[in-house]
């Protein structure tokens, strides 16, 4: 028993040591908005070469909501690259000094009117979002998808009657998919990845959020600039982004 405990202690010490190797010359640590998990996962798995001529360069990605990422970075998390799902969150990171590089536009993601499978609420247009009899969900205005939805609804003069303000787009999307919510505004990428039905609402097309990428350091090493170049210009990455519902700049 005592030996087993000692073994566990050694293993955890080694594991803790491994956790601190992030940021070595061959590793690019990326903090990214959750919606990029599939795209970055493809790069992470080694399917694409990050740095031309340096096959050892790999990325290590950590995912969370953009606001959470910015808070982690401010509180001392180590990262080489930050990718946020909104301009506002990137600007916060620049303003509080945690990001020194200048951001470039990776892609945009737009809102869609999503409905439960089979459209049980008979939702036909954005105006149905004001119907108190239907179960309507929006993202909370505190998070990017909710801020965007609020901006869109105000601009379009729709006085929505939501039954819930979900804490993130994924929980809203899942409840629409489960059929607990009749309709709501989610990102196009979430509708595509979860296979959620959408209703045509062309007036939403001008409401989108920008995905920005920036290096944390003002003077990043070559692998970091190579990685940013890869995701902003490589044709296969661009293809992947489009397939998932992002719009390219």
């Amino acid at each position, binding site marked *: 028993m005592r030996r087993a405990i000692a073994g566990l202690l050694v293993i955890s010490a080694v594991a803790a040591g491994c956790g601190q190797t992030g940021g070595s010359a061959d590793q690019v640590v990326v903090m990214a908005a959750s919606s990029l998990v599939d795209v970055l996962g493809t790069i992470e798995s080694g399917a694409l070469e990050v740095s031309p001529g340096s096959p050892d360069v790999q990325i290590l990605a950590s995912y969370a909501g953009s*606001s959470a990422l910015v808070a982690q970075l401010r509180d001392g998390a180590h990262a080489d690259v930050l990718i946020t799902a909104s301009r506002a969150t990137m600007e916060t990171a620049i303003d509080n000094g945690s990001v020194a590089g200048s951001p470039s536009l990776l892609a945009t993601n737009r809102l869609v009117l999503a409905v439960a499978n089979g459209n049980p609420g008979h939702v036909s247009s954005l105006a149905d979002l004001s119907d108190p009899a239907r*179960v309507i*969900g929006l993202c*909370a205005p*505190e*998070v990017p998808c909710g801020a965007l939805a609020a901006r869109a609804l105000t601009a379009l003069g729709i006085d929505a009657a*939501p*039954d*819930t*303000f*979900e*804490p993130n787009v994924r*929980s809203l999307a899942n*409840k629409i998919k*489960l*059929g*607990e919510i009749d309709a709501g505004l989610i990102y196009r990428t979430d509708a595509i990845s979860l296979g959620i039905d959408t209703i045509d609402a062309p007036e939403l097309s001008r409401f989108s959020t920008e995905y920005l990428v920036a290096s944390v350091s003002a003077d990043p090493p070559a692998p970091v600039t190579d990685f940013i170049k890869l995701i902003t210009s490589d044709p296969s990455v661009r293809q992947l982004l489009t397939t998932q519902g992002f719009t390219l700049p």
Partner: protein
Amino acid sequence: MSRPPTSQPRVLIASAITALVLLVLPMAGMLQRVPWSTLLNRLGDSAVTDALRVSLIVSLWSAVLCAVLGLPLAWFLARVEMPGKHVFRAVVLLPMVLPPVVAGTALLFALGRRGLVGQWLDRWFGITLPFTTAGAVVAATFVALPFFVTTVESGLRQHGESLDEAAAAAGAGPMSTFVHVTIPSIRSAIGAGAALSWARALGEFGATVTFAGNLGGRTRTLPLATFLALENDPGSALAISVLLMAISLMVLVALRGRWVMR
């Protein structure tokens, strides 16, 4: 302290202090960031008072439901012998260890509009629980119930069956014995269980947001308001956290560890 500290094993003392520091440090970290000068203003904000009202309604109803449903269950666990009861008890305790978000999802699968039972509630009675205050009460009760049941079960075991048997021998019926003899004898356990389950319900977040959603004045409780405020108004989030912490601490101090049956 009745004995001088030198007579205590030092290793134990040191470990105990370490454990205490681990528990207290996060609170201290939070308290030093609290915007004390604007605390009252922030707590007087209508968004906070709305959340406080919803929290009190939900947590008190939940404590009442825990008592009404939990008392018979605790009696059953303490008094009725049946094979495989340890498995049964483990199921009762499950909500204590389940991640609350999972609990909320499970509630959606069971009581949601398309859920196992929920679809019939909707079809036959027009009742839908998700996104309603009643739904928030159900979510809070689900996670808080084991706290009541374990406290009262341990009270019942302490109390033993001798008084009950005496009452039965004197001619009291089983229900009359339960109401007039058993319940009065475990009053303090019932009180402690109700207070504990109420405190747990008050702090409930994951199951509530998953099952009941988040709408001001209807389902947005203090923990939900705190979580969203953390996104862009950490000062208010901290102010609400202090309020929650103060309320919970008062209850636990008032109990003086009474849920641990001596």
